[in-house]
């Protein structure tokens, strides 16, 4: 009998096939033991028929199994593990409770190597031809975590191109590189065998300086890639959908959520190899598309949650219940939980203490509710993990128990204690007691807070009429909401207007024209061209935005806003761009290709230079799309004239996912690829070719040969970076949302809230977020629509009670708070006693800067009051330490 895991929903035990009764009709002990008579050993499989209007397929991916090829040594050599095995080794709930140990001798490895592209980017049988997209970055993460376990461990990564193409990936790559004792070695690596005594793994590789050599590692991690789900054929047959040549879902690049069968949608890595943020985009996006189909039935199957009435505890003596979580073994392996429980019993106002295996498990939460009722608790302290993930859940538990949800305090004895003091158990237990004592002290001072219900205006504002903005606007409008679509130019379309074909050969302009036509014909979409936003005020559910446009000034009231202002092509200053008209950017080449420009079609030699204007000091990020863009254009040139000499001078070819196939295809077509390093970039100068024609000579130092190679080019094409829109700063300050270090908009959370901002009611999609391919922009656009609709389809929205409030009597009207509030949530109002600050609690984000600058303590951040914070300080330092 098993429970899947303590947080499983529903939390129910199941019986597997090894049951003696099921096999031999013996035993039946469990039946007798179950007091509720819940065990039925005569259950048989039953067919359940569900009538649904739409289906979302999100079967995920399967991990590549390196056993398919003996050369990886997996399963044969004990100290060769896969990336997924290594994840488990590092995990606190893993086989060695978070210790990284070798299978051969249960010792910590002191020297670990990663081999990239295992099972990916290979044409050989059993391997996958595509790039798995996620392995470069997950291996870097594993290096960082290995260093967290033991900073001394040397880490080596054998890699091909390092594909740090995602948002923040380039700096993450640099962070890994800069760790001490980390080597990135660009080489194919093969596993030769193991040392029979030490069981160390022998790896053979080659470097430009030292040639072929062998080296031993105590552990080798195979960075295995992503396979389609195991039974993809069965899945395809069952749902009547098609799969592509790799076994992933066959999708339409104009709408990657659509399968080949209407009404059946796909989200996640079944689309193809995706990382977590992309996967989350597609999840919201598939939801939005189901919404379009089933809008008329929205809400029919939902039932409203009813909480018991809240008891008023404002005057009651604090009665605190403390629940100390083992977190499986995450906490209890280090912190002596029973000892902590015994200690907490001695604290003032604590009337109940208990330990729990997993406080977040369904049965534990029920125990909390029951105990609150039984013992009339009015404060609850959960000594467990960070409030960041589970505070909302426990607040809900308090509400369920009939007490105000702000009477909860979480004492973080996991991240702040057991995880960082694994080797100092006694000291960790003492620290856990300190942390819980502080929490108990704070909980005494906690006050019940009320949240605010706001009405929601059902309309949406979409800023930016490019592909992402239009797609998002259509999805919202198709679900019955008015959408105001603002475009700064005279025409809709954005950057897509300059793109003519996709890498898979689709006609962009035809699709774009259709999309624009749908926008203009949609009765609920109101387009404002040449729009300029003059003022944006209001808050979630109730925004008021003032604009001017070709239609004159307008005031738009809306409940949600989507920022989709796109990005721009960098205007190069390098490689004679702007000085010699034979130097173009890829967008310019694309436009001239579309017009069959003779200078392009007649060229004998074309050199493309990658990473122009990015991956450098000024713009420390990868523009993501340029490698595939170059390959696409190179293939088109080769299609026009197979004899044309096409060279791509690159740093890392980042044709991730299925675009790897086109990279290989270009190689087969004779496109030459030559790698350069930032220390020695290519040079371009006007010269004369051997046949006497005037050319641009591009000299590149070949990193393998070490010598300069010169190419004669009739055209030099620059893969110019994608840079943030010029309007980004202004839009950011109007809507009070942040920009990241690269100048692109900063989402609320990279993985958990990738299309939202920290400012409620404002959403994000398209290249305003980061450079991306069109299908990716569509994913995110539908994703943003999906999230916006969860807001817009409700009549009310609830906002936090942990906001600032002014005690008018104490306010001296100095305005310091107004000055520091970047949300404009505070204003000074005239009263008979002079000016006084007033907070609009709906706009307040609860950062508390105003509280810290207020001279008189008139403005208070509720839930983090001076009284609450100081009670924690006092509890930590109960007695001044005597100086001897």
């Amino acid at each position: 009998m098993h429970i899947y895991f303590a947080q499983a929903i529903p939390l129910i035990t199941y019986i597997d096939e090894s049951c003696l009764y099921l096999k031999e009709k013996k035993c039946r002990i469990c039946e007798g033991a179950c007091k509720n008579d819940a065990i039925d050993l005569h259950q048989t499989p039953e067919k359940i028929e569900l009538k649904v209007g739409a289906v979302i397929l999100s079967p995920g991916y399967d991990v590549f199994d390196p056993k398919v090829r003996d050369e990886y040594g997996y399963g044969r050599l004990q100290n060769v593990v896969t990336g997924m095995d290594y994840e488990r080794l590092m995990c606190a709930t893993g086989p060695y409770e978070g210790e990284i140990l070798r299978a051969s001798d249960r010792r910590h490895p002191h020297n670990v190597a990663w081999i990239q592209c295992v099972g990916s980017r290979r044409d050989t049988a059993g391997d996958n031809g595509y790039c798995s997209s996620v392995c470069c970055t997950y291996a870097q993460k594993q290096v960082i975590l290995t260093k967290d376990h033991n900073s001394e461990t040397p880490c080596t990564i054998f890699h091909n191109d390092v594909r740090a193409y995602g948002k923040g990936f380039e700096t993450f790559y640099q962070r890994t590189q800069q760790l001490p004792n980390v080597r990135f070695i660009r080489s194919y690596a093969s596993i030769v065998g193991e040392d029979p005594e030490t069981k160390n793994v022998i790896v053979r590789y080659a470097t430009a300086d030292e040639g072929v050599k062998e080296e031993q590692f105590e552990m080798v991690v195979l960075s295995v890639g992503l396979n389609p789900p195991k039974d993809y054929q069965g899945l395809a047959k069952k749902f009547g959908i098609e799969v592509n040549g790799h076994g992933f879902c066959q999708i339409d690049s104009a709408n990657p959520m659509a399968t080949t069968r209407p009404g059946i949608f796909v989200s996640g890595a079944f689309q193809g190899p995706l990382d977590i943020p992309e996967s989350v985009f597609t999840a919201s996006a598939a939801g939005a598309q189901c919404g379009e189909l089933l809008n008329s039935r929205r809400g029919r199957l939902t039932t409203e949650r009813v909480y018991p009435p809240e008891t008023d505890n404002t005057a009651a003596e604090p009665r605190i219940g403390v629940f100390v979580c083992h977190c499986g073994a995450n906490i209890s392996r280090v912190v002596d939980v029973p000892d902590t429980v015994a200690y907490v019993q001695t604290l003032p106002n604590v009337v109940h203490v208990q330990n729990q295996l997993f406080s977040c498990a369904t049965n534990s939460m029920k125990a909390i509710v029951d105990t609150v009722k039984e013992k009339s608790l009015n404060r609850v302290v959960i000594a467990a993990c960070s409030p960041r993930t589970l505070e909302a859940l426990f607040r809900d538990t308090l509400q369920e128990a009939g007490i105000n949800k702000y009477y909860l305090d979480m004492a973080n004895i996991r991240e702040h204690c057991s995880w960082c003091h694994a080797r100092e158990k006694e000291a960790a237990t003492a620290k856990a007691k300190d942390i819980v004592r502080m929490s108990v002290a704070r909980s005494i001072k906690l006050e019940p807070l009320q949240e605010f219900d706001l009405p929601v205006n059902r309309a949406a504002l979409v800023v930016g009429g490019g592909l992402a903005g239009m797609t998002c606007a259509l999805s919202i409008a198709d679900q019955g909401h008015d959408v105001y679509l603002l475009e700064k130019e005279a025409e809709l379309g954005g950057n897509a207007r300059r793109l003519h074909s996709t890498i898979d050969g689709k006609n962009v302009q035809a699709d774009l024209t259709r999309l624009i036509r749908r926008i203009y014909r949609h009765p609920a979409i109101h387009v404002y061209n040449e729009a300029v936003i003059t003022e944006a005020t209001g808050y979630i559910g109730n925004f008021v935005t003032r604009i001017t446009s070709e239609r004159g000034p307008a005031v738009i009231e809306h409940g949600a806003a989507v920022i989709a202002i796109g990005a721009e092509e960098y205007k190069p200053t390098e490689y004679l761009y702007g000085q010699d008209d034979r130097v173009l950017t890829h967008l310019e080449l694309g436009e001239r290709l579309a017009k069959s420009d003779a200078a392009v079609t007649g060229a004998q030699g074309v050199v493309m230079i990658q990473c122009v204007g990015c991956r450098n000091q000024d713009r420390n990020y990868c523009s993501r799309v340029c490698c595939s863009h170059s390959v696409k254009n190179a293939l088109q040139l080769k299609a026009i004239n197979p004899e044309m000499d096409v060279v791509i001078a690159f740093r890392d070819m980042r044709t991730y996912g299925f675009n790897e196939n086109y990279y290989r295809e270009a190689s087969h077509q004779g496109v030459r690829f030559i790698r350069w390093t930032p220390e020695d970039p290519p040079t371009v100068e006007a010269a004369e070719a051997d046949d006497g024609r005037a050319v641009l000579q591009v000299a590149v130092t070949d990193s393998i040969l070490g010598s300069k190679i010169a190419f004669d080019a009739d055209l030099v094409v620059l893969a110019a970076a994608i840079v943030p829109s010029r309007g980004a700063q202004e839009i950011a300050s109007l809507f009070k949302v942040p920009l990241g270090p690269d100048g692109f908009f900063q989402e609320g959370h990279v993985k958990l809230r990738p299309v939202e901002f920290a400012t409620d009611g404002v959403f994000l999609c398209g290249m305003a977020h980061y450079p991306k391919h069109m299908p990716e922009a569509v994913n995110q656009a539908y994703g943003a629509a999906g999230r916006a609709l969860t807001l817009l389809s409700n009549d009310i929205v609830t906002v936090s009670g942990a906001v600032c409030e002014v005690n008018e009597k104490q306010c001296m009207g100095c305005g310091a708070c107004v000055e520091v509030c970047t949300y404009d949530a505070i204003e000074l109002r005239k009263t008979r006693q002079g000016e006084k600050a007033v907070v609009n609690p709906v706009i307040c984000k609860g950062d508390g800067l105003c509280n810290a600058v207020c001279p008189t303590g008139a403005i208070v951040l509720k839930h983090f009051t001076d009284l609450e914070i100081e009670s924690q300080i006092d509890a930590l330092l109960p007695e001044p330490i005597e100086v001897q």
Partner: protein
Amino acid sequence: MCSGRVDLAHILRAFAKGADGVFIGGCRLGECNYITHGNYHALNLALLSKKIFEHIGLNPRRLHIAFMSGGEGNLFASEVDGFCKTIKELGPIGQSEEISPARLEEVMSDITRLVPYIKIEKHEKLTVCLEDETTYEDHFSLDEIKRLFEEVASYYIDPAKCQACMICARSCPVEAIDGGKGVVHVIDQDKCIKCGTCLNACPSRFGAVTKIVGGPVPAPLPLDQRTIVRKGGKEKTTSTEKVLP
């Protein structure tokens, strides 16, 4: 809650309670996930506090501020380890500085009472964004802190001018002004936070509130001498004048 919520009073309280060191952790500068960039406020506050400690003879290294992201556990650990090492070197608070616990408590309590005054005086410098690390050290100077404490103002109500109109008493944010209608107002110097609200509130035709810098504040009149008797509703005298014709 943002690291910018950390209050000078919180830091002082920890030291007054016997903490040997205080560590403030914030998000990486310039990478605020919101738009507040309150971590700069925390930085300024730390810089100010360090200078105050230097001024009173406490080692400023007992306060440390570091910036990191939620994913940088290793950085956090090395920062905390380094700080613990520093504090162990410095020993218990007051020891290496030769300040007795009683004196320390007294000093901390004196400064805590001046927190509102310091917030008002240094508001601008506390809320600016210091982009350039080289300017950190000079953001607050020791001279400036010395002046700050030398120039602490006190507010005093001249009994001869006070009309007992209640305007200042009503405007005082901390209810430090005693006296009702017809009773000369007196500022309770222990409660006063030196915000100057009363100075601005007192009608200029009375001008009863004065700001005293440096010198002592005259003792208040005894309560039995503070009653104002108005003659014909126009003139007024204090009871002092009445008993001494």
